[in-house]
């Protein structure tokens, strides 16, 4: 038995910040939009769990699916409301799921969706469940101060739900993962106690070294694409669409040029929703659901950690 994506949904907060409204010179704003491709970002003051509750309850009501069918709830997040307990436990309670359910959180960012899928696949293969949900949710805005322009113009809060169901037919062909923890300081919410001596980290504000993340991405993403294609004895020509984590326009354009992927094979949404971390690929899947049906897709999540993961799917 195999993993299958049955349905997808997502929630973006109502609050939206237009990049043009930032107190920056017109020239600077033009440069930012030119490179990031992002014109607006979303943020919420409400808790992560409140947003997830809204998303989950609305999804089950809208699709008329009984919650009792759900046997696992995996929450991918790096901005949890609680360090402990596991936030997925709180969601089980708040959303009235049955008690016979597996719940746990995954602390991964932009590669988290791929991690969640691979683990869900293992749960199905172990016969532990027939149906489950994967929630990718992050509120990076709570780590970003008003002065932190480089992060403010990039990251959006977003919440996505992937309803997974066991399938007889194999739709996920393969998974690949990688980690390089030497880059942990390149994208980090510092621990004030541990980082006191480090002058770069002045607060528990999200810190990002854009250039280090960029160099990581242009090195590791092409590598993992080659590896997963080779593993499946495929060439990039056999892939209908490439779905990259929506880091920024510059990163995606550089990757597509490096890999010589035709533009029409790459689907994006960064200009409309910003960098939504672990939700970026689920939101694209939802947006282009019809277009992607029965197509062969290569998805790559990459970022904070550094961590990266890829998967090939017959959607």
């Amino acid at each position, binding site marked *: 038995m195999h993993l299958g994506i049955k349905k997808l949904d997502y929630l973006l907060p109502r609050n939206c910040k237009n990049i043009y409204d930032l107190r920056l010179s017109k020239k600077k704003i033009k*440069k*930012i939009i030119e*490179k990031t491709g992002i014109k607006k970002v979303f943020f919420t003051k409400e808790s992560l769990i409140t947003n997830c509750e809204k998303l989950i309850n609305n999804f089950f009501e809208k699709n008329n699916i009984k919650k009792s069918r759900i046997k696992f709830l995996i929450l991918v997040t790096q901005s949890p409301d609680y360090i402990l307990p596991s936030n997925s436990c709180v969601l089980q309670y708040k959303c009235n799921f049955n008690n016979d359910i597996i719940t746990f959180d995954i602390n991964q960012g932009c590669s988290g969706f791929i991690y969640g899928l691979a683990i869900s696949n293992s749960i199905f293969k172990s016969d532990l469940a027939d149906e489950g949900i994967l929630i990718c949710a992050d509120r990076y805005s709570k780590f970003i101060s008003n002065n932190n322009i*480089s992060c403010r113009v990039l990251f959006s809060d977003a919440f996505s739900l992937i309803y997974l169901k066991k399938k007889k037919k194999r739709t996920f062909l393969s998974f690949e993962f990688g980690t390089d923890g030497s880059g942990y300081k390149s994208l980090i919410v510092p621990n004030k106690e541990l980082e006191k001596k480090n002058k770069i980290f002045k607060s528990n504000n999200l810190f990002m*070294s*854009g*250039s*280090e993340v*960029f*160099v*990581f991405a*242009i*090195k590791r993403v*092409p590598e993992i694409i080659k590896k997963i294609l080779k593993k499946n004895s495929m060439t990039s020509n056999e892939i209908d669409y490439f779905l990259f984590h929506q880091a920024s326009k*510059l990163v995606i354009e*550089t990757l597509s*040029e*490096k890999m010589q992927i035709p533009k029409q094979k790459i689907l994006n949404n960064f200009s409309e929703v910003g960098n939504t971390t672990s939700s970026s690929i689920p939101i694209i899947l939802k947006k282009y659901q019809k277009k992607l049906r029965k197509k062969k897709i290569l998805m790559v999540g990459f970022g904070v950690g550094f961590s990266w993961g890829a998967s090939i799917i017959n959607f």
Partner: protein
Amino acid sequence: MIKKITEKELLVIIKNSLEVKAVSVNSSSKNLKEWDSLGQLNILSVLDKKLRGKLSLVNNISKADSVKKLIAILKKKSLLI
């Protein structure tokens, strides 16, 4: 064949990436306000194209925020003539 660039070409890349009138070997993020995080990203992406994708193989290139540092790092990797 490994693509290499000259010091003159490097200065042109930096000048164009930062959209400034001129740069010298003494230019850096400390004395050029255009050499901010976005400027650094521009320099790296253009350099990567010029070096035919070899940039990611160069250690510490992302931290090189001055012309002198870039020259030293690229020379060490034999990517600068």
